[in-house]
């Protein structure tokens, strides 16, 4: 049901030309389409609890939406707002922050994102480089973030900072700030994958109050870690959708393209690559559907809740590779047209790489699993 509705809507709003329009803009999405998503479909409120005006559905439903968005390459602040900002608020927000921001997100008047990575290329606690110092009743935030999804356009930004001199998982705090807070400088970072925009953000003596702090100062790593893991499951879901779509495009194209007097889809070398692509797409989905069940319990309680770290890494490590392999095979099996700007295959190929790198590539997640198994 959810899937059918999503497909119908996305086929309409996320056509190739719509994607390309969004790609060409600095904002990275068309405001009018985002507004339709927020007001007609109400997707941004999908897993926000009903008390804040949300739909109160679970991660299982969310993941279906994400899979379809990955398939249709929807350009929108959905991922940043729902899978970073909203998750951060749900996991770590104070009652007042939830009341204010989640309601605004439900109304479609606020987009949000999470900034935690500095420029050292890490995705774990060491990624947090910006600092916080206390100044009487106030906090002063300083530092630089890179790779922040939709960081230049989001209305609300959750910043991860650390106490000066702290390392690793110690001393980390989260602040929820209006993006226009004085001292917050944001600039768009042009990226190879133009379907999801990234930003650099610098904080220069940003002065904030306790009301902006999420939870306890210096103790926020467990929350941040959980937010990252939930987002990791979400990226994997998009990847599973992309892996399926690159397969579908390939099957369709090779059935039409005739060489040596027959559709190239009839050549066994082509069939076998397609079969491997289907295997990867199906395995990716199996990983994601399970991870979604786990994420759901991690948010709302259940016996699987403590499997989140493992399930997220299992899904992300497989889906990253699976999507990238499918996208690269898709280019190969399209021949010359696969190498053109005009065909959409390269959009998936580029999105596959950017989402593989984002929140840690396969090797990174395998190492996390190795730590669970071996250390």
């Amino acid at each position, binding site marked *: 049901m959810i899937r059918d509705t999503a497909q119908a809507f996305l086929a309409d709003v996320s056509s190739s030309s719509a994607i390309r329009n969004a790609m060409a803009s600095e904002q990275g999405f068309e405001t009018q389409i985002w507004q339709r998503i927020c007001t007609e479909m109400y997707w941004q409120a999908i897993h926000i609890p009903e008390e804040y005006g949300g739909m109160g559905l679970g991660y299982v439903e969310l993941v279906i939406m994400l899979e379809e968005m990955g398939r249709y390459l929807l350009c929108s602040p959905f991922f940043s707002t729902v899978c970073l900002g909203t998750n951060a608020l749900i996991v770590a927000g104070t009652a007042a922050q939830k009341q204010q921001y989640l309601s605004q997100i439900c109304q479609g008047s606020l987009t949000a994102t999470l900034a935690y990575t500095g420029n050292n290329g890490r995705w774990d606690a060491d990624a947090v480089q910006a600092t916080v110092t206390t100044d009487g009743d106030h906090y002063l935030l300083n530092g630089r973030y890179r790779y922040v999804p939709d960081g230049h356009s989001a209305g609300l930004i959750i910043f991860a900072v650390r106490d000066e001199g702290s390392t690793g998982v110690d001393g980390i705090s989260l602040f929820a700030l209006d993006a226009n807070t004085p001292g917050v400088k944001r600039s768009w970072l042009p990226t190879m994958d133009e379907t999801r925009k990234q930003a650099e953000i610098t904080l220069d003596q940003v002065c904030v109050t306790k009301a902006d702090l999420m939870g306890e100062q210096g103790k926020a790593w467990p929350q941040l870690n959980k937010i990252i893991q939930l987002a990791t499951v979400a990226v994997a879901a998009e990847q599973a959708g992309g892996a399926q779509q690159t*397969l579908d495009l390939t*099957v369709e194209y*090779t*059935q039409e393209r005739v060489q040596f007097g*027959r*559709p190239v*889809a*009839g050549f*066994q070398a*082509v*069939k*076998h690559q*397609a*079969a*491997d692509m*289907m*295997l990867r797409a*199906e*395995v990716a*989905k*199996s*990983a994601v*559907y*399970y991870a979604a*069940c786990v994420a759901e319990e991690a948010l709302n309680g259940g*016996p*699987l809740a403590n499997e989140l770290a*493992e399930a997220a*890494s*299992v899904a992300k*490590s*497989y889906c990253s590779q699976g999507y990238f392999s499918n996208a690269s095979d898709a280019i190969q099996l399209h021949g010359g047209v696969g190498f053109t700007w005009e065909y959409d295959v390269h959009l998936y190929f580029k999105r596959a790489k950017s989402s593989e790198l984002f929140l840690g590539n396969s*090797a990174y997640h*395998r*190492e996390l*699993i*190795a730590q669970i*198994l*071996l*250390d």
Partner: protein
Amino acid sequence: MKISFSPEDEKFRAEVAQWLTQNLVGEFEQLKFRGGPGDEHMFPQARKKWEQKLAQDGWTCIGWPKEYGGRGCSIEQQVIFNEEYARAGAPGHVGHIGEGLAGPTLIAFGSEAQKQKYLPGIVAGTELWCQGYSEPGAGSDLANVKTKAYFDEAKGKWIISGQKVWTSLAHESDYIFVIARTNPDSIAHKGLGFFLMKMDQPGIEVRGIKQLTGTSEFNEVFFDQAECDADDIVGKPGEGWAIAMGLLGFERGVSTLGQQMQFHNELNQVIAIAKANGNDKDPIIRQRIAEAHVRLKIMRYNSMRMLSDEGDGGLKKEALIYKLYWSTWHRDLGELAMDVMGPEAEILASAPYNLTRLQAMYLFVRSDTIYGGTNEIQRNIIAERGLGMPKEPKIQMN
């Protein structure tokens, strides 16, 4: 997607586990983690006895309907049974071809007389079966079988002549089911019959084939005017192909979770070795162990997807990819095991050619990607049935 079992199911799980702890002892202790693919030659007599022990308490053929001696267990309960069975390290079923293939075929296509005659021996674990499909000229191209069957009116019997090959456990079996050509002029899948035959008769000769493991689990089976009772053809002459294909459909994934538990045991062995010899610190080995774990986890999630009824009723894509996925995983595990062991991997348990369990696993997994439809055939099937791509062209050779 189904990810947990009901409280009744969990009660059933406890019952199974308890039975196994109480019974897998004494003379059966030596059978733990033995048997199964790659180890079928070990302890056949003791494992047969174990099978009969299971049968006494109703733990064989648990998914069969009660009227045929089964327990009528739900899919969930079958999954649980298989999981607990593998977890306890209970030995590979010597009777798995009867329980998993011959029996279900008879239940679906057999006459009432055939059911009465053959099912009780399978349930009791007293009669073992083997599968006579492949021939020298009919491997992937199974429809090319040449073994012939004609009806001898005077004797009132079917007379079968020809040769089967790669027949697993033929040397331990009491019966064989055979596909053979009932119409000598027919080609391909037309004109085949499906026969149930007694192994112990003058017209059948079994010769073991030594595998690259040095052991012998499969055989050549020669038929020279071998006899089959008139009542022992399943269906009619000409229906053999449909029945043989129906049989392949019986693998619905229930046993897969049990198989995964065995894979899990193997991976755990590899991890234990890595921890003991320090290779758990090698960054590449760490990556490969984690990858094996990731893929095994997803194998389980994939099976749960297969088993959970999403009501689409149609062909399940996650089931189509399953054989290719697990066989490749297992093959990779074999290689990982050797690399984790390092130079020690080469050293045999003893002369002349006695392999350690992991060496046997490493060598045997090369067959996982061959039997039951090779990986290449799996890819053809996935592309054609899963993706609707064109069928392989038929080429006439003169």
